[in-house]
C-alpha cells in the first residue's frame, strides 16, 4: 500500500512540473495573438461574440439560434458584410448556466476581443451575465423575451432589439383571451422569473379588463409529473392559461388530457412549451382546438409572403417548421427569428454610427437608442417593429394560433400598439 502511494507521489511531482510548463507555455501563447487582434481593430472582420446554449436545458433553442445566426451571417456576408467588413461569429457555450454565462461574456470580451456580444436566451443566464457586460462596458444584445431588459433592472449596455418581451406579449393577447375564451382564468406557470412575469402581467391586465384569476398554480422547473397539480384548478375555470418551458411539456399535455377528458375548459398556451416539439407527437392530440400564442408562424401556407419564404429557406426549415433535412428536427420558430433580426439591427446600427472599434461604443449605443422602427422585410421577417430607445426594447405584432389538424393556424394578429405599455425605465439617463 505504502509502495503504491510512494509511486503516485513521484509521478504527481513530475506531472506538476509538466503541467506548470504547459501552463506557462499556454499563458505565453495568447500574448502575440491578442496583440495582433488589437492591431487589427477597426479593420478586418467584425467579430461578434455569440453566447449560445449549446448544452444544458436550453440546448434545443441553442441549436436553432446557432443555425439562424449562421444563415443570417451568410446572407450579410454575401451582400458585402457590415460597413464593408465581413462578419465573423465567435461562439461560446454557456451550458444554460448563469455562472458560466458571466464567464462567457468575460471570455468573449477580454480573450476573444469581440466587438459586440449577442444571442443569450434563458432569463436566468441573461440576468447573471448582463452585469458583467456592463462592467466590461461591451454592448450585449440579448434574444431573451423576459421583461428584465425593459424593466430597467439591467444596464445601459444591454439591448433587446430583435424579440418582444413577455409583458408586451401578455398585454397584447390578454384582451383577446377574455373576449373570446372566457373571463375566469386559472394560470399554470413555471415557478421562476419567466413564469412570474406571466403571472404578474396577465393578472394585472386581466383584472383591469373585467376578468378574474381563479387560481395561480406555480410549477417547479424540474417537475416531471403534473397529475398532482390539476386538482388545484377550480371547477368553474373557463380558461386554462399555461406556460411551461422544459422537457416535461408532453407529459403535461397528456396528463391534462387524462385529468379533464372531454369536459375541458378553453385552453390557451404559450408556444414556448412546444418549441422544438412536433405537434403531431403522440399525446399532443389533446391540444386539438386549443389556442397558442406564437411570435412567428411555425407552419407556412399559401399566404406566407415571399420574404418570409426566403428567410425560411435560408434558415433551412420546411413548411412544417422542421429541418429540411430531418422532419423530426423541429425548430424553435417563435424565438430564433430574434437572432436574425438582432444581427440586422447590429448591421444598421454599426453602419449608421460609423462604429469601427470599441472606442466607438458610445456612438453605437446612442445610435441604437435613437432607432424608432424597423420595416417588415427580409431583414425583419417577423413583421414591422417599434423600438423604444429608453427601454432598449423592441415591440411587435403578436399572433394567436389555433391547433387544427395537428398544425398551428394563425387566427389573429395583434397590432403593435396592443402590446405597448407605459415605460417604467429609462436607460438613456445612465452614464456610459
Amino acid at each position, binding site marked *: 500500500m505504502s509502495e503504491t502511494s510512494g509511486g503516485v507521489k513521484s509521478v504527481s511531482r513530475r506531472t506538476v512540473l509538466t503541467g506548470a510548463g504547459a501552463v506557462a507555455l499556454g499563458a505565453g501563447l495568447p500574448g502575440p495573438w491578442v496583440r495582433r487582434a488589437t492591431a487589427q481593430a477597426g479593420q478586418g472582420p467584425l467579430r461578434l461574440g455569440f453566447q449560445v446554449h449549446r448544452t444544458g436545458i436550453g440546448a434545443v433553442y441553442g441549436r436553432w439560434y446557432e443555425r439562424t445566426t449562421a444563415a443570417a451571417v451568410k446572407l450579410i456576408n454575401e451582400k458585402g458584410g457590415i460597413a464593408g467588413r465581413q462578419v465573423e461569429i465567435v461562439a461560446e457555450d454557456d451550458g444554460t448556466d448563469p455562472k458560466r454565462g458571466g464567464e462567457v461574456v468575460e471570455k468573449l470580451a477580454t480573450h476573444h476581443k469581440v466587438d459586440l456580444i449577442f444571442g443569450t436566451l434563458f432569463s436566468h443566464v441573461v440576468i447573471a451575465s448582463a452585469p458583467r457586460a456592463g462592467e466590461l462596458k461591451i454592448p450585449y444584445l440579448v434574444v431573451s423575451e423576459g421583461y428584465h431588459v425593459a424593466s430597467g433592472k439591467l444596464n445601459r449596455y444591454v439591448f433587446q432589439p430583435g424579440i418582444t418581451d413577455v409583458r408586451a406579449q401578455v398585454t397584447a393577447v390578454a384582451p383577446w383571451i377574455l373576449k373570446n375564451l372566457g373571463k375566469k382564468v386559472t394560470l399554470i406557470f413555471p415557478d421562476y422569473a419567466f413564469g412570474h412575469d406571466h403571472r404578474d402581467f396577465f393578472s394585472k391586465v386581466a383584472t383591469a379588463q373585467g376578468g378574474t384569476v381563479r387560481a395561480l398554480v406555480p*410549477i417547479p422547473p424540474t417537475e416531471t409529473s403534473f397529475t398532482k*397539480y390539476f386538482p388545484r384548478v377550480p371547477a368553474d375555470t373557463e380558461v386554462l392559461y399555461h406556460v411551461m418551458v422544459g422537457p416535461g411539456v408532453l*407529459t403535461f399535455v397528456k396528463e391534462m388530457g387524462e385529468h*379533464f377528458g372531454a369536459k375541458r375548459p378553453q385552453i390557451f398556451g404559450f408556444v414556448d412549451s412546444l418549441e422544438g416539439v412536433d405537434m403531431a407527437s403522440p399525446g399532443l392530440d389533446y391540444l386539438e382546438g386549443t389556442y397558442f400564442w406564437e411570435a412567428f408562424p411555425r407552419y407556412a401556407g399559401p399566404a406566407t409572403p415571399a420574404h418570409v419564404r426566403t428567410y425560411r429557406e435560408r434558415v433551412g426549415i420546411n413548411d412544417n417548421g422542421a429541418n429540411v433535412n430531418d422532419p423530426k428536427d423541429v425548430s424553435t420558430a417563435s424565438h430564433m427569428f430574434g437572432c436574425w433580426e438582432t444581427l440586422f439591427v447590429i448591421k444598421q446600427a454599426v453602419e449608421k454610427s460609423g462604429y469601427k472599434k470599441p472606442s466607438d461604443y458610445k456612438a453605437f449605443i446612442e445610435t441604437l437608442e435613437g432607432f424608432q422602427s424597423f420595416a417588415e422585410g427580409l431583414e425583419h421577417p417577423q413583421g414591422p417593429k417599434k423600438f423604444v430607445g429608453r427601454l432598449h426594447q423592441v415591440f411587435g405584432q403578436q399572433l394567436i394560433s389555433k391547433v387544427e389538424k395537428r398544425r398551428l393556424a394563425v387566427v389573429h394578429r395583434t397590432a403593435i400598439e396592443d402590446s405597448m405599455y407605459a415605460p417604467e425605465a429609462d436607460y438613456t439617463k445612465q452614464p456610459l
Partner: protein
Amino acid sequence: MGALVLALTALGLSLVFGVMRIVNVAHGEFFMLGAIVAWYVSTLTGSFLLALLVAPVAVAGVAVLADRFVLRRIGYEPESTIVATIGLLYILQQTVLTTYGPYARPVEAPVYFRVDFPWFGYSGYKLVVAGVAAVLLLVTWMALSRTTLGLQMRATQQDREMAQAFAVPVGRVYTVVFGVGAGLAAAAGALIVPVQQAHYLMGLDALLMSFVVVILGGLGSLRGTLVAAFVVGLSDGAISVLFSPTLAKIVATLLVALVLAVRGRGLFGEELA
C-alpha cells in the same frame, strides 16, 4: 406508479452499492439511456414491447463494458469510482446530446385507456407501468433469494474476502451486479418514456431521488429500498397535492437528514463493520 418506478431505479443503485461497495454516480444516466434506447427501438421497429426488452439488455451491456474497462482497472476503490462514474455520467450525457440531440421525444404508449372517476381521470398506462415494475421487483427479489447467482451476490455483499475464499467468482459477480443494476434503471427509464419522454438530462432527477431512497432505506438493504421508495413516492404525491411540491422535496430531504442523524445506517441498513 411513481413509487414503483422509483423503487426499480433505486434498487439498481442499492444493489450496486450493497454488493460492490461503490457509489455509482452515473446511475441516473443508465436510467436516461434506457429511455433513449427505448425511443430508438420503438420508433424504428414500432414495437414498444421489443423496446422494453432491448433497452435493459443494451444498457446492461454498456454497464458491463464500463465495469470491465474502467471500474476493474481502478480496483473498485471507492474514491476513484466516484470520480470515474462522474466521468461516465458526462460521457453518456454528452454522447446522447450529440447523437440523439437536445429534444424531449415521446413514445406512443402501447396501451391507452383512461380510467374515469366522477371528478377526474387517470391514465390506464400508468397502472400498467406500476404492474410491470412490481413484477420486475418481484423477479429481482426471487433471483436474489432463490438462485445460485443471488446467493453469490449476497455472499459477496456480506464478506467479500470470505466469499472469495469459498470460491465465489467475485470479479464476475461484480460485473453481473453492475450490469443488472444498470439494467434495472434502464427498465425503469424505458417504462417511463411513454409517460415522460426521453431527454438527455432526465437522469439527474432519477439519480437524486434514488439517492434519497437508498440513504433512507439503508445502503445495501433491498427491503429498506422498497419501503423507502414507497414512503418517498407516496408522500411526494400527497404533499404536492395538498400543500406544495417544494414542501414535498423539503420533507423528503428532512427525512433523510433525520434518518442520518438518528440512525446513521438507514431504516433497514445493516451495521457496517
